[in-house]
């Protein structure tokens, strides 16, 4: 379990990015951490991974302060950052040098994932494209069997087939004891994968709900002009809106619409969940 309590953080003493942030992440979930650029998604992932320390409050990962960077805890954390640089060695060499640090590393799983991503142990890491490097890191990260996986914009740089491959692999690889946190601003890429959804804006968590709860409380449907919706935006085929679900029917969740709606009208949308 990952828990932050009254976590405050700022890159300078005067400007606070997070102020008394409380959040709990439980095993068996794929959390979607959504937010605009600069909202604090990457910083939150870094704090959870122990790469950045909170100014006050705490961030515990499986019961230990993440900032202590204990080997026993780090064995259970694997982070795939948005920007990375890999050494100029072959995949096989990288694996033989890094895998032994992870006690539960599954070489069979890695073999399967590399095949799935059309990579081989002989591939030189520095000669791979950005997307291929990302696939390799994903394969390596999933094979560590770490209980906490943190991915920062994992679909950036992936082509369209690779994005669906990414969703398929994630869904097939994760176990009930693992927590996956995916930070992204490309919400459409991860539809049907992430649950619950956490939306972060200006250092605050402004929305944190499961898919089930969202579709129970809200509907996403075309709306006519003049109809009062919690949020509506104009598309090619008219207006789409978010409405309180008063009829009990379930509509397909439009992640982008929800994100835009929450960012512009979080107060009213959150009130629907309180009722």
């Amino acid at each position, binding site marked *: 379990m990952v828990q932050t309590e009254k976590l405050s953080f700022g890159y300078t003493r005067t400007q606070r990015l997070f102020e008394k942030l409380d959040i709990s992440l439980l095993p068996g979930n794929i959390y979607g951490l959504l937010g605009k650029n600069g909202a604090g998604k990457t910083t939150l992932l870094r704090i959870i991974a122990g*790469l950045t320390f909170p100014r006050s409050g705490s961030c515990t990962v499986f019961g230990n302060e993440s900032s202590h960077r204990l080997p026993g805890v780090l064995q259970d954390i694997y982070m795939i950052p948005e920007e990375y640089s890999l050494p100029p060695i072959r995949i096989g060499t990288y694996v033989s040098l890094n895998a*032994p640090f992870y006690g539960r590393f599954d070489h069979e799983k890695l073999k399967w994932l590399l095949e799935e991503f059309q990579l081989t142990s002989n591939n030189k890491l520095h000669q791979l494209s950005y997307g291929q490097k990302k696939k390799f890191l994903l394969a390596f990260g999933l094979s560590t069997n770490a209980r906490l996986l943190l991915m920062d914009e994992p679909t950036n740089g992936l082509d369209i087939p690779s994005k669906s491959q990414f969703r398929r692999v994630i869904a097939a690889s994760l176990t009930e004891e693992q927590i996956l946190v995916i930070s992204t601003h490309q919400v459409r890429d991860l539809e049907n994968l992430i649950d619950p959804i956490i939306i972060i804006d200006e250092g605050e968590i402004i929305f944190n709900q499961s898919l089930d709860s969202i579709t129970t409380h809200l509907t996403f449907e075309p709306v006519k002009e003049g109809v009062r919706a919690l949020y509506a935006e104009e598309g090619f085929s008219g207006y789409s809106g978010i409405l309180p679900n008063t009829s009990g029917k379930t509509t397909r969740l439009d992640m982008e619409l929800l994100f835009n709606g929450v960012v512009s009208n979080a107060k009213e949308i959150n009130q629907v969940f309180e009722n």
Partner: protein
Amino acid sequence: METNNIFSTHRLYLLIRRQVFSNGKSLLIALGGVSGFLLIISVLVAYFNPSALIGLTALYFTCMFIGGYIFTSNIFNEMHQIQKSYSFLTLPVSINERLAAAWLLTGILFPIVSLLIMAAIVLLANLIMNLTVDMAPFQSVFSPTSLKLIKIYVITQSLFLLGAVYFRKNNFLKTLLALIVVSLVLNIYTGLVGWALFGSLNSEGMHIDGNNISPAMNQLFTDYIPNMARFVFNYLTLPFFLVTTWFGLKERQV
């Protein structure tokens, strides 16, 4: 099984192996380049001016000191580059192991390898000398002076280890600059203290020597202070800089 969060020799071995093989190529190129240069110089000297061969030991050790300081300054490079730091800092190893791996590589293994390379170069140069000039005595790098120099290297490289953690870019040059500034400040300070204590004597045309200062003061300057300085250098410098490097590693963030 419970993970040892403080120190594991297995993880230390894995970390050293990772460090060596991840940067193996550039390490080998640098070591090969310097060794090749020294070998050519030594062979030429052995052939044309055999009597000057003994003087080359100073050049070998100068190369070892400078090379070792540069190697030490770059040992934590992975940690300072934002695109690489995440993999270094989230690697499941303790701070003790990070420090021990860096110190063993740069402070212990490096001088041992350097000494072995020097011995090989000297051996080769001696062989050439014996083939060309009949009289050549065998010279070795394994002497008490060499061991003393190695000890000085092990102690002084700890300063560069701290610089490797503390500075994010151009670590070697910045550490060197910091050392120059600190020694300048210390020299100015001791100069000022000396002037404050004995400046008036000088204006009266007197010179300080063993005849015009008290025996206690004489003992302080000739015995206590040099002994204390030797003690600080031999026994306190290395632990002090290793401890400060440990804290630097502990506090390092992305």
